[in-house]
């Protein structure tokens, strides 16, 4: 049951043991990388795979999406893909109502979103839940830095669809925000903050955003803080809902077993139920942070390392180049430079990843890993050296070609399910991207040269601008083990042992 557990908004990351547990029971490898390391030479290792030799090298075929687009009478933008194969549909309404619109009250956006399904006229929270669940419908909600989301997955038969949509429209457009529910949810959020204190990764992440964004609204955690939550009032929630959940601030994405006419009727119904109003302005761009390292003592076995700089906003023309560049550095699970050097050749970590998170305004570029505490300083230096080397020399032609091939090959996977399509429609609408965005992105990526990728990476990143946070115990440091293979020329400034 793929998505069923996601929507429950009761726990706020207050992980319940059994869930943690179930996950621990299935130990997936997050990634593997290639022990050939950087393929500096064009020569590929000579494998004897018959099936690979038989592939014709053409890009694979993919499902064609006909994205339809219109605007409701109240100003909500709608994106729709008809998918008739399964008797179900997905509705995802995205508002520019994340914590960057909190206006100095961290947690206001999250509380408002979490309170949507706590009461409507004539129904309390349990009656609402019984309403959806009795129809087999999944209601979901969530709030992040830029956006807040409310979603519905339902069977498409009209006896299920219509009552589910009626309830959804009330929940999103006319919530009653009961006082007792607000108290309860505040308590759950506060419990969640306590719970986070045992998690070194969470501590590192919060500190990193605070250091990276300073006074900018992205600096605060979306869920708010133990100081900010208790004072938030019902009046603040109502005001926030009135402006941030307005039709003009909404994007409605629909995928599934619906005709265009049915989709129009659904969008019109949801839109008409929302408060009237226009789109909210984006937050200001953040200012450059001061580089430097912050260490937080924590009694764990591992030290968590996070390295970051300001990245880009979602409309930045360099996004395809940075995305491809990052894919080679540490973006994919497999065979990236970071995974190859840190995990495969030295066994220092279970996983190391880098990511650009483009947002409404400049989102972060981050590198994230954990390693045994006594090797943390050497590992941090190694990661910094890998980044510096990559910025200095750029990717190899082979790496770029491989990354392009990977991207083209993975394209068919990106719109294989209704769930993945509705997510893409939501993002295209929310960030005002062209309907052809996916195709454009593919084409632009395929046209990039080594020099263009290198130039884009250097335009946005610098090896000496990193904001670094480490969380772990203070222990005597040891030198790193020697890497496994001995390249003819040492490509990095890695100390020899």
């Amino acid at each position, binding site marked *: 049951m793929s998505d069923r557990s996601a929507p429950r908004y009761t726990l706020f990351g207050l992980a319940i043991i059994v869930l943690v547990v179930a996950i621990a029971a299935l130990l997936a490898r997050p990634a593997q990388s290639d022990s050939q390391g950087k393929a500096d030479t064009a020569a590929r290792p000579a494998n004897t795979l018959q099936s690979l030799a038989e592939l014709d090298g053409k890009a694979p*075929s993919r499902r064609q999406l006909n994205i339809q687009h219109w605007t409701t009478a109240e100003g909500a933008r709608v994106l729709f893909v008809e998918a008739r194969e399964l008797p179900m549909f997905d509705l995802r309404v995205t508002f520019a109502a994340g914590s960057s619109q909190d206006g100095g009250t961290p947690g206001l956006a999250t509380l408002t979103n979490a309170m949507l399904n706590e009461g409507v006229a004539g129904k309390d929270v349990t009656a609402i839940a019984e309403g959806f669940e009795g129809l087999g419908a999944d209601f979901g909600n969530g709030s992040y830095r830029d956006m807040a989301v409310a979603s519905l997955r339902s069977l498409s038969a009209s006896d299920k669809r219509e009552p589910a949509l009626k309830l959804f429209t009330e929940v999103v457009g006319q919530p009653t925000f009961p006082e007792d529910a607000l108290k309860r949810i505040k308590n759950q959020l506060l*419990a969640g903050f306590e719970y986070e204190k045992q998690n070194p990764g969470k501590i590192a992440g919060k500190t990193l955003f605070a250091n990276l964004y300073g006074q900018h609204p992205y600096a605060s955690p979306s869920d708010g803080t133990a100081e900010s939550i208790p004072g938030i009032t019902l009046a603040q929630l109502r005001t926030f809902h009135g402006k941030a959940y307005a039709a003009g601030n909404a994007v409605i994405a629909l995928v599934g077993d619906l005709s265009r006419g049915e989709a129009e009727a659904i969008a019109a119904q949801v839109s008409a139920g929302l408060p009237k109003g226009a789109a909210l302005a984006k937050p200001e761009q953040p200012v450059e942070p001061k580089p430097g390292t912050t260490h937080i003592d924590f009694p*764990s076995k591992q030290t968590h390392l996070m390295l970051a700089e300001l990245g880009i906003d979602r409309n930045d023309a360099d996004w395809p180049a940075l995305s491809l560049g990052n894919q080679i550095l540490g973006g994919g699970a497999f065979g990236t430079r970071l995974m190859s050097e840190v995990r495969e050749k030295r066994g220092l970590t279970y996983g190391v990843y880098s990511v650009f998170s483009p947002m409404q305004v400049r989102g972060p570029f981050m590198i994230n890993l954990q390693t045994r505490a006594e090797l943390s300083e050497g590992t941090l230096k190694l990661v910094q050296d890998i980044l510096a080397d990559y910025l200095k020399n750029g990717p190899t032609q082979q790496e770029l070609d491989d990354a392009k091939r990977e991207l083209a090959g993975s394209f068919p996977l990106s719109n294989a399910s209704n769930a993945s399509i509705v997510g893409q429609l939501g993002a295209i609408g929310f960030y005002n991207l062209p309907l052809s965005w996916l195709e454009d992105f593919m084409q632009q990526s395929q046209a990039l040269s080594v020099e263009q990728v290198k130039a884009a990476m250097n335009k946005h990143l610098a090896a000496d601008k990193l904001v670094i946070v480490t969380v772990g115990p203070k222990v005597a440091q040891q030198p790193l083990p020697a890497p496994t293979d001995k390249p003819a020329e040492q490509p990095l400034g890695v100390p020899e042992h």
Partner: protein
Amino acid sequence: MNALARRAAGLLLGTLCLPLAAFAADVQPTHEFILDNGLKVVVREDHRAPVVVSQIWYKVGSSYETPGQTGLSHALEHMMFKGSAKIGPGEASRILRDLGAEENAFTSDDYTAYYQVLARDRLPVALELEADRLASLRLPADEFSREIEVIKEERRLRTDDQPNAKAFELFRAMAYPASGYHTPTIGWMADLERMKVEELRHWYESWYAPNNATLVVVGDVKPDEVKALAQKYFGSIPKRAVPPSKLPLELAEPGQRLLTLHLRTQLPSLIYGFNVPALATAKDPRSVNALRLISALLDGGYSARMPARLERGQELVAGASSSYNAFTRGDSLFMISATPNVQKQKTLAEVEKGIWQLLDELKTTPPTAEELERVRAQVIAGLVYDRDSISSQATTIGQLETVGLSWKLIDSELDDLKRVTPEDIQAAARTYFTRERLSVAHVLPEESAHE
């Protein structure tokens, strides 16, 4: 994490994902066949998009391991990426990455599985790579010496530095006194420290045989083409005798056990586990299906009893959940866990009282027709929703086959659950929710240790 984790987390509705003719537009055709070497192949057609998922499931996992050799199955899973006859260490991952595939593997107590999701024209590569490492794994000693360090990092990350995961590991060790389910899948650190690559070779040679595996392919394929590919790449791998494997059976009523842990956590929490059968071990499948319904009544949605009463009504807990995995190879546990609402000064004792009220009510009072109807509506819808993911469909098939059940069970899902009467639910509650079957863990912050 895949659908299995959520399933193990106990949503009743997580268990079955195949369609019912009565509710779905078209049933996706599903086919099975067995190669001469014993490899079972299940193919399910889903032609919505030109993509395919291939999974191979081996009947071996941590419940097959013996003391001193814990973690072997999981470590072998890691080493399966370190080269075979046709390719060098790590090369399979690089080849698949360059083809745009998603690939990974997972190990549990009952199985070890490997998967690739990729554009349909690339399926032969996935199958050739998978067949090659089944037939001819290299297991180089120098690769193992580094990979075991990665595995130790994985253990530190996921268990040693995670108080709740650590608590659950110890809880399982207590709650399964007789079966291999007490063994943590990643292995005890002491066993990782002394693991030898020769042990992995022995483990590989013992269990990685075509007749001990199930290949599941779901997506835009026809059974004939999969059959031809399976024959081409797997057909020449010889059948081999595998060691006898016995179902992990538990003591029915081991007696109440209590574990008190002081860990680096801010909030106290509680774990309950009742020793109960699973579908593969139960004499009467109705009692197992009754337990599945009970889990749904307690925690099958935001309107279920635990969120409605414990979390909201009494505000006793900040969060609580129940779970029951009926699809295990051996006997199972019915699990409940909860975190008290400390903002309301609720204690573990009060939470335990609240949980027992719910359990005792199940023994004495039948659920209402409305409640059961809500569960049914969720099952029906869930069967359709699960078809949106080819991976979720493949995982359900692979899991059922690997724990000794048939993937065809999914066709009878709704009927099996409908057959359960309110009296069955009461009888199951009375039989299984007893002190003699119960293990309890109290997980407390460290400060309390110094009082």
